[in-house]
Structure formats: structure tokens, C-alpha cells
């Protein structure tokens, strides 16, 4: 259960590789109760913050006749596993009656895939930020070249000098220059 389709696909691949059968992927499903019942899922993996979690919990508390999933953060889980799951942002539900030993590998795969996905996200964000920063520095350089009739290396040196004098990052100085000259 995940509205992040990429992450859901990664978790699915991991689970299949571990010998599990993935009976369905749900994202923002309106009748979650029916989806869980009809899929016959024994374990449900989802994002820790997914709003659909509250609907899943409602199944247990509000309908006595449905499959009754129990959150895996339960007393029985080991503290390290709980901590790892929280850090990775993953929650899992076990349909009542399933032996804990059968659930363990599922949650371990989910934690690894969630963590990998998180790392990938962070890497991507970092790369995007680097590109943005480089663009900003280039624009500041171009503005300096234009205003002060400087060559590119001269403009770059001036930027660096400013940053060093003020003890600021190059990109911070570039942002200020772009902001000022635009205004």
C-alpha cells in the first residue's frame, strides 16, 4: 500500500526476489477493506505516514468480521527492528493469526527497500541542488561580466574573493548578487 509508485515497485521487486507473492498494490484505494479481503493479503507493507493506515486500523477496531490486520510495531517486534522501520519510514500490518517467523523476512526486505529509496531520493535532491547552485553561480558571473566588463575568470575571482572576505559560501554570494542586480 503506497502512493509512491516507484517505491512500491522497488518493494515489490524485493519481495518477489525473496520468494513472496505480491497479491496487489493499493494507492489511495477507497474501499480498502474490500481490497484487503479480496486480495487475501497476509502482510501489508505501507509508508509510515500514509493516510490509508488509519483506514486499515479502522478495519480491526470497527468491523469484527473482516480480516483484522495488526500493526507490526506491536510488542512482539524487536526494538532494533522497530527503530529501523521508523527510520526507514515503513509500517507493516500482519493479518491476525500469521506466525511471526513468516513476517520477519517481509519486513526486513521492506525496510531495506524503503531505506534504499530514501537514499536515492536524497542523492537526487542533492544532485538537483548542485545543478541549481551551479546555475546561480553562472548567472552571477554573467551579471558581473556584463556590469563590470570583466572576463569570465576575473568575474569568478571576484565572486570567490567576496565569499572569502565575508566567510560565506560561493553560492550565497552569487544568490545575493543575482537578487540585487535583478532588482
Amino acid at each position, binding site marked *: 500500500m503506497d502512493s509512491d509508485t516507484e517505491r512500491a515497485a522497488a518493494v515489490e521487486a524485493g519481495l518477489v526476489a525473496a520468494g513472496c507473492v505480491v497479491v496487489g498494490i493499493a494507492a*489511495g484505494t*477507497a*474501499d480498502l*477493506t474490500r481490497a484487503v479481503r479480496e486480495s487475501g493479503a497476509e502482510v501489508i507493507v505501507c509508508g*509510515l*505516514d*500514509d*493516510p*490509508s*493506515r*488509519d*483506514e*486499515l*486500523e*479502522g*478495519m*480491526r*477496531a*470497527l*468491523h*469484527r468480521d473482516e480480516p483484522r490486520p*495488526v*500493526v507490526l*510495531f*506491536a*510488542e*512482539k517486534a524487536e526494538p532494533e527492528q*522497530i*527503530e529501523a522501520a*521508523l527510520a526507514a519510514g515503513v*509500517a507493516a500490518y500482519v493479518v491476525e493469526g500469521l506466525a511471526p517467523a513468516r513476517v520477519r523476512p517481509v519486513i526486513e526486505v521492506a525496510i531495506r527497500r524503503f531505506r534504499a529509496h530514501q537514499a536515492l531520493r536524497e542523492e537526487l535532491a542533492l544532485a538537483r541542488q548542485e545543478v541549481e547552485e551551479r546555475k546561480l553561480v553562472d548567472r552571477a558571473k554573467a551579471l558581473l561580466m556584463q556590469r563590470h566588463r570583466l572576463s569570465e575568470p576575473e568575474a569568478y575571482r571576484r565572486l570567490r574573493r567576496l565569499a572569502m572576505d565575508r566567510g560565506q559560501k560561493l553560492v550565497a554570494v552569487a544568490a545575493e548578487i543575482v537578487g540585487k542586480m535583478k532588482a
Partner: protein
Amino acid sequence: MPSAILDPALPRPALHRPALRTLRLGLVQLTDAAPVLVAEELGLFDAVGLRVTLSAEGAWAAVRDKLAFGALDAAQLLGPMPIALAAGLDGVRSQVTVGAGLGANGNTLTLSLPLAEAIGRFTRPLPAASFAAALRRRAAAGRPVTLGVVFPYSSHNYLLRWWLASGGLDPDRDLRLVTVPPPLCAGRLAEGAIDGFCAGEPWGSHAVERGLGTIALSSGDIWPNHPEKVLAFAAGYAARDPESAIACTAAIIAAARWLDAPENQAEAVHILQRRLFPALGAREIAAAFEGTAEGWLQAAPLRFRTATLPRREQAAWWLRQMRRWGHVPAGLTEATALSPWRQDLWRAAAARLREVEPPPPAPPPGEPADRDR
């Protein structure tokens, strides 16, 4: 800015020693998260010397898990949640401490237009008997009614159940109750997945604004001035760092005081819109502050200041409902279930603000003898 909120004649609440670390506080996208947001926006946490990071959580289950397993130090919780945690319902057990109430009243029962039409003309608040009659007609026609509540262990669920039962309905048999996260309620109503929902504001007013539903009654019509959300500290937090817990509680009381002053409501609406509901119009958010629901004046509207003192005898009503509907194990004692409600933090915080104890609230609705269960 903060000095404008804290009466200059009163002593400023201050930490007796510097905070050692940042307090992580979880909240949910609802109007009654206002005391927490306002405390941050107006610098009230700063004024008490507390560093706080707020995190908006996507699900009540996530708030519960993070508070129970140490990823949050404090959180906005639904009133019955500390009981569920003390009882270890659904496997998650934790001994949280209630520092303050975050509000009274403020939820609405919103019905789809077709269902409202099936009821016929009614005066608000809708009498339970009229609803029951319409529901029976629908069931006889092979279309049983489904209503959404925001979480199983919620004031919404228990107040709605009480109201349904008062109209002669069995909430477990005569209709279907499902959980729907508040921001999804209007959409589910539009899809026809539910026929109505009981949720905190602004979600009822939002459904009305979108032309999807009509508000039949507000939760204060069922139990006038019922306690709503609470500010709860993680197990052991108040014992480890009582200064921070008291300071945080003081900031919340000061925020509640500010929120109940009519001259501040426009700014409160503005803060909520900017921080929590950028996609919603100011009118939808303002209704709760004006005490209106779809334009009609609520008898017991959303209030903050009078609800900050946590009262165990009020929480006992949640426990009685949880027992009535078989949501807690028979062996659960009242002492265990209600142990999260303490008043020492509130009293210490209130003393620093010279906040007087709010007047005793109206008693909860009585429960009929458990004849049919």
C-alpha cells in the same frame, strides 16, 4: 509580538534552566491544531525558552507510533488515544502523559446531499430519530448507509455512536462505520464511497463549500463542551525533563488564551491557512472560529481556553464508551486506562501564567442501561 499576547502585567513564563534539546512535536492537519501552530508562530515557545520542531503527520497511526517509539516527544492526540495506548490496544502500548487539552467541541457530522434529501426537511441539530428513520428506509431499499469517522479511538467515533444509539440504532449492525482520514472525507463523499462523515474542522465546512454535503449537527450538540484533542508527552518525557514539559504546556495555555480572544481570530485563520490549508479558502477555515456551521450558529462551538485543563472525569466518558462497544478488554481497570490524565503539569504551567482554573464543564450525556448488548 509575544509580549503583546502575554499580558505585560503578568509574569512571563520562563524556563528555570535552558532546554537541553529540541522538543519534537507532532500534529495533524486540523483546525484544532491551532494552539500548537499559534504557539510557534507567535513565538510563545521561544518566550518560555523552548526549542520546538513541529512535524505535520499524515495519519493518526503515524502520530501514535512515533510518540510510542520515541520519534516524537509530544503530539496532538485524539482524546481516547491515550487510553488505547495505556491499554495496549492493537499491540501498541505506551504510557503517555496528557499535559493540556487542545480544545473543546469543533467536529461536525456532514451528510451527502442525497442522504440529507432522504431525511427531508430538518432543523439543526438533526434529531437522531429522524436520521434513524431515513437510515432504515435506505436499508430497506437495499442501500445501507456508510459513515466515516477519522479514527477508531476518536471522540468522533464515540460521540457519533452515542448519538446513533440514542436514536435507537446499533452502530455495529444498522450501518457501516469506516475510517476515513479527514482530508479525504470530501473526496470520498463526492465518489459516493461514504454517505456522511464526522470529522474535525475545516473538513465539514470544506465539503459544504464544495457543494458536496450539508452539516447536520456539530459534536457540541451531542456533548456540549466535550473535550477534544489533547497535548500528550511521550512516556517518561515529563519525568526526564519536567521543565520542558511545563514550559511547553505553558506555551499552549498562552496560545489558547490568545485564540479565544475574538480580535485575534482573523489572524488565527490566516496562520492556519498559510501553515496547514494552503488549498482551502479562508471562509472554510473561519467558520469554526465564528462558531458557525454552514451559516447557522452552533450552540457549543470550538473553544480553546476553557478546555486546557485535562480532566480525568471527562476522559472517563471515553473509557465508558470504549467499554460499551467492546473496544477495550474487560480486565482493563479505570486506574490504568485513565492514568495518562494528570493535572500537575497544567497546574505548574498555569501558576506561571496566573491562569485560573476554568469553570467546571457540563456533564457528559448519560448512557442508557446496556440492554441490547
